[in-house]
């Protein structure tokens, strides 16, 4: 694995039930690359939360996963409403998701905290009315 591998996905904002497909494909691809299973678990959970967020709040977006020897980087970009108060959004239990989303078992205010918990770094770039970009990194223990 000398060059970085890049997987790119369009996340469909209309279809809540298919959200998670990109994460499942990433999980399978990482497994084929022989990545450690706990690393795969962390990457796929963080990415799934990101996908769900893009579907709930932003009408979809683009997810890109770069894999090299040192690190797995997940970049999520959308043109949704942006995050007004990032500090609040990072608090467990804080959510602006609508009720119908809660009835499906989401909207518990755990999305961003889960993404932080499962990654080694999380950066959020968000402008209200323009969109949000999230960059997460998980370092590959096997290579270190």
């Amino acid at each position: 694995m000398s060059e970085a591998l890049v997987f790119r996905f369009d996340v469909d904002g209309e279809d809540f039930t298919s959200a998670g497909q990109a994460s499942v494909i990433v999980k399978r691809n990482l497994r084929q690359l022989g990545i450690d299973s706990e690393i795969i678990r962390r990457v796929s959970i963080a990415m799934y939360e990101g996908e769900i967020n893009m579907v709930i709040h932003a009408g979809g977006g683009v997810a890109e996963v770069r894999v090299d020897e040192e690190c797995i980087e997940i970049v999520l970009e959308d043109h949704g409403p942006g995050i007004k108060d990032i500090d609040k959004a990072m608090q467990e239990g804080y959510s602006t998701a609508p009720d119908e989303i809660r009835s499906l078992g989401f909207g518990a205010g755990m999305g961003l905290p889960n993404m932080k918990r499962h990654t080694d770094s999380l950066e959020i770039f968000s402008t209200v009315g323009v969109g949000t970009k999230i960059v997460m990194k998980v370092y590959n223990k096997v290579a270190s």
Partner: protein
Amino acid sequence: MKVKELAQISDFGAITLPEGDRDIEGVYIGDLLSWVMGRARADDAWITIMSNVNVIAVASLSDVSCVIFAEGVMPEDSIVETATKKGINLISTSLSAYGTAVRLSEILK
């Protein structure tokens, strides 16, 4: 204990067991999917009353050994089909989530 062995015990029944040889190493109870993803550990048996298709994705991503639907909840056929395709074991019980946990605590000793 293997998932397929649990499905043989009274109070429990197999809905689909595409990977019945997986071991159960612990238990997690929850219906809020993000909580489950954040807290459940790989190889846990996950007890829930949620039965929508997102449960299958969460089970797959968090790598639990099986989903146990408590309170007699039965997922729709299309969800069972998805679980079978994705290698997610599904078990049913008429016990409550608490009753299921108590029973598992006895069995997994």
